[in-house]
């Protein structure tokens, strides 16, 4: 049984009390303590900057050529905070409650409440850094709504919220780099974790420019290395996003928690061909105004698939706005897992609206009309013409979503102001991740995990605009305190030497692993293995899963792994800039990660959040949880022979009642 180290006390005051009684590290000692931060996304950059400000000696790593290019840069829609600026009944409790419910009652109450508490400080901090959030006419901060909630608590910066928040954190990090508190290592990839006497004391990296293998020692290691969505090959993640840092930590004793909890985002641009390298998200914010539909009849859908009709040819009464029909209370703004499954159901019925039959419409025509009319009224235009309304309406929509519409048009070549967008679900986010306790410390002492890399706050499904919140909460407001619980015991530990036997062994392991990969010298490219893996996991461990399918998938993944180690071909040398080698080490780890996802999905005999098991559904086809047997976190230990061991953390709900999640 895993100990989450949640401090005692009332939920609402626990964090404040804990923080006030925490062990501190005196300023003079901080200067002597070294911290490694791997990752410069929202979680890593905010952590490294803040730890630097506090006076710790920080070494920060990313595989990108600049810390500003971390995948967080791509987040579009927004960041949640319980500010209640809209006076619409929001509160810390409500954000807490929405997140617990949204996560389908599979997250840790105390962590989620802390997240809701610090959410408000995040907005203040970002504003102070100069993050240009959207503003109302009076100059105050604006909000919008995201799925799964009934208040407006999402702060945003056009469709580039992640970019602006990351630049804020990157600039703070840059200030710490300039004043010497943080030493930055760009284009360095962590290839192993080093433990000394059971504690995390360093990492082994490869300098991606030169191929040099280096040892880096510190008093503790913080990993903020992002999610593992690219197991599926096609996802909305950046091409380089990978699980290797986390997976290497698992192979050194950390645990992979709830790996089967994956978020499939309902609104992405559909796949167009075999050569497809990634999928592009259309922000959830679009569901504030876009209406999702498919034709009511299969005949109409067929005609569209064959190119004989378009969405515009389908009369209003022949359209099925299925989310509004099935979920009247939340309509188009149901949570992501619900919206994705509903799209799959529509397409499985043969009602898809693209050549492949794998797409549904997201339509802005009604919103353009509504905004056009209200804008005409505001501007005092009497009896506006239809074309004037259209123009005014399009202008409003352009102002709200302009860059998203532009992105859509660039990729598809279609104008979404005139034609309804075509969208389909795609892998987007991973709720599962490295197991951490309340302090964000893993079961390996001195190893911490932040941001999407950990499993902590979103249970079985994440609500929109909550990942940015969590990343920044972890980095700015949690780890700077909780790291002291570990480091206060280390003030007498001299600098860790990278010359110990443990470092030497870890370095040798890395060298052997790279040499082994290179020596295979087979005939298939790394990319081709990645594609094959992605297809298996998407088919059997994607939007819906079954026992038979999962059992089959395990065999397929194991066979593929064998094939990889006998037939992969990596061009170039080990000691030079070699992107194919980088990909190979990442795909090797994905090939193991994929297996643990399947194992976890097989173990969890229930449907919850992003994990939908076909055997466990209600009569209406909704997900059916099994609280009696599965109200726990499954944290996995890897075993090379396939006997992966599960560790449990039981989840206790003292402040909310476990209910069937309903958005009807």
């Amino acid at each position, binding site marked *: 049984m895993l100990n989450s180290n949640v401090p005692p006390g009332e939920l609402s005051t626990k964090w404040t009390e804990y923080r006030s009684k925490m062990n501190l590290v005196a300023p003079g000692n901080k200067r002597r303590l070294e911290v490694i931060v791997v990752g410069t996304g929202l979680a890593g950059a905010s952590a490294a900057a803040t730890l630097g400000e506090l006076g710790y000696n920080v070494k920060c790593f990313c595989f990108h050529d600049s810390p500003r290019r971390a995948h967080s840069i791509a987040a579009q829609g927004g960041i949640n905070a319980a500010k209640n600026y809209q006076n619409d009944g929001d509160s810390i409790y409500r954000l807490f409650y929405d997140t617990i419910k949204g996560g389908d009652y599979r997250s840790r109450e105390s962590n989620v409440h802390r997240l809701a508490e610090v959410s408000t400080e995040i907005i203040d901090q970002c504003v102070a850094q100069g993050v240009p959030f959207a503003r109302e006419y009076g100059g105050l901060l604006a909000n919008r709504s995201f799925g799964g909630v009934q208040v407006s608590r999402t702060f945003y910066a056009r469709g580039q919220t992640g970019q602006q928040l990351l630049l804020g954190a990157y600039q703070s990090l840059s200030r710490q780099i300039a004043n010497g508190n943080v030493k930055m290592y760009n284009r360095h990839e962590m290839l192993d974790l080093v433990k000394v006497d059971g504690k995390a004391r360093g990492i082994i990296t490869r300098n991606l420019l030169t191929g040099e293998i280096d040892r880096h020692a510190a008093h503790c290691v913080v990993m903020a290395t992002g999610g593992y969505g690219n197991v599926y090959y096609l996802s909305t993640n950046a091409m380089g996003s990978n699980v290797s840092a986390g997976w290497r930590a698992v192979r050194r004793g950390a645990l992979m928690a709830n790996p089967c909890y994956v978020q499939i985002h309902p609104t992405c641009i559909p796949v167009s061909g075999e050569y497809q390298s990634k999928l592009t998200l259309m922000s959830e914010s679009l569901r504030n105004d876009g209406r999702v539909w498919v034709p009511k009849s299969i005949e109409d859908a067929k005609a569209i698939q064959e190119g004989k009709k378009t969405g515009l040819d389908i009369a209003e009464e022949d359209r099925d706005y299925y989310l509004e029909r099935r979920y009247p209370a939340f309509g188009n703004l149901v949570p992501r897992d619900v919206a994705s499954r509903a799209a799959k159901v529509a397409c499985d019925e043969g009602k898809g609206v693209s050549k492949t039959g794998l797409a549904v419409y997201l339509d802005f025509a009604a919103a353009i009309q509504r905004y056009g009319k209200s804008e005409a009224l505001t501007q005092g235009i009497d009896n506006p013409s239809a074309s004037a309304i259209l123009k005014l309406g399009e202008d409003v929509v352009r102002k709200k979503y302009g860059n998203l519409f532009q992105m859509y048009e660039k*990729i598809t070549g279609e104008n979404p102001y005139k034609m309804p967008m075509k969208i389909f679900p795609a892998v987007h986010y991973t709720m599962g991740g490295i197991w951490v306790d309340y302090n964000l410390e893993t079961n390996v002492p001195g190893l911490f995990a932040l941001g999407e890399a950990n499993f902590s706050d979103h249970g079985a499904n994440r609500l929109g605009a909550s990942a940015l919140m969590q990343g920044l909460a972890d980095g700015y407001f949690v780890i700077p305190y909780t790291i002291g619980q570990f480091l206060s015991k280390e003030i007498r530990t001299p600098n860790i030497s990278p010359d110990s036997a443990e470092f030497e062994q870890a370095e040798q392991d890395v060298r052997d692993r790279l040499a082994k990969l290179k020596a295979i010298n087979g005939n298939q490219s790394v990319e081709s293995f990645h594609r094959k893996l992605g297809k298996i996991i998407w088919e059997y461990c994607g939007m819906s899963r079954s026992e038979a399918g999962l059992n089959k998938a395990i065999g397929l993944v194991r066979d593929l792994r064998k094939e990889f180690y006998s037939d992969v071909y990596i061009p170039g040398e080990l000691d030079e800039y070699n992107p194919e080698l980088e990909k190979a080490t990442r795909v090797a780890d994905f090939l193991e990660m994929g297996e643990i996802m399947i194992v976890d999905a097989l173990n969890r005999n229930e449907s919850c959040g992003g994990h939908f098991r076909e055997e466990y559904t209600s009569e209406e086809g909704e997900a059916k949880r099994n609280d009696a047997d599965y109200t726990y976190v499954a944290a996995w230990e890897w075993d090379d022979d396939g006997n992966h061991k599960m560790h449990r953390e039981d989840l206790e709900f003292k402040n909310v009642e476990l209910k069937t999640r309903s958005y009807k």
Partner: protein
Amino acid sequence: MKLKLQVWRQKNKNAKGSLKLYNVEADEHMSFLEMLDVLNEQLISDKSDPIAFDHDCREGICGSCSLVIDGRPHGPQQGTTTCQLHMRHYKDGDTITIEPYRAKAFPIVKDLVTQRTAYDKIIQAGGYVSVNTGQAVDGNAIPIEGGIAAKAFDAATCIGCGACAAACPNGSAMLFTSAKIAHLSLLPQGQIEHKSRVRKMVAQMDKEGFGMCSNVGACEVDCPKEISTDNIARLNREYLSASLGAED
């Protein structure tokens, strides 16, 4: 469609590079980078060296992609990064020349990959507001007029891709630097440090080996985020007043 590609191949920083000719079969729905992926798969299956190029998000926001296509950073399309360029803009039989950025401050790593750390250094010199975590006041205590917020935002959308310096005959980083100066100095939060910021960032720009700005305007034309050269005018005004004024 069948295409001919003239691609710059250079083994490493010190090697001599040259253009090499490749044939590739592309589909109009592919992105430009997916077309290069297809070529690379081909090269790998022939056991030859694939073409190295930087990329990550493939949706126009991370600033990694950085090709010079037929002489223009990010290619022919206005306001578009390389990764957002699609093959439907080309036709069967076209020949396309692909080269790396060429600017003194961006050394070539391999083939089409360059090192753009010099831009990070410019930000480190002063491209921030000096506020530690925990020191902030309530977000709504700093109201900002919509027009000003929008202008600051426009400048803040720079993705740090380096196309401006690559497009500039002088290899100047002025557009990039001025975008950050404008973003921060337009906002009340950035006002206090605005004089020292512009001095330090301009000095760093020189130190990194970027050239002088002589108002050619090529940067604005090739900037994928359509950052305006108005920002350069603002930088110049700020720089002048910062150099004339006393210490801040």
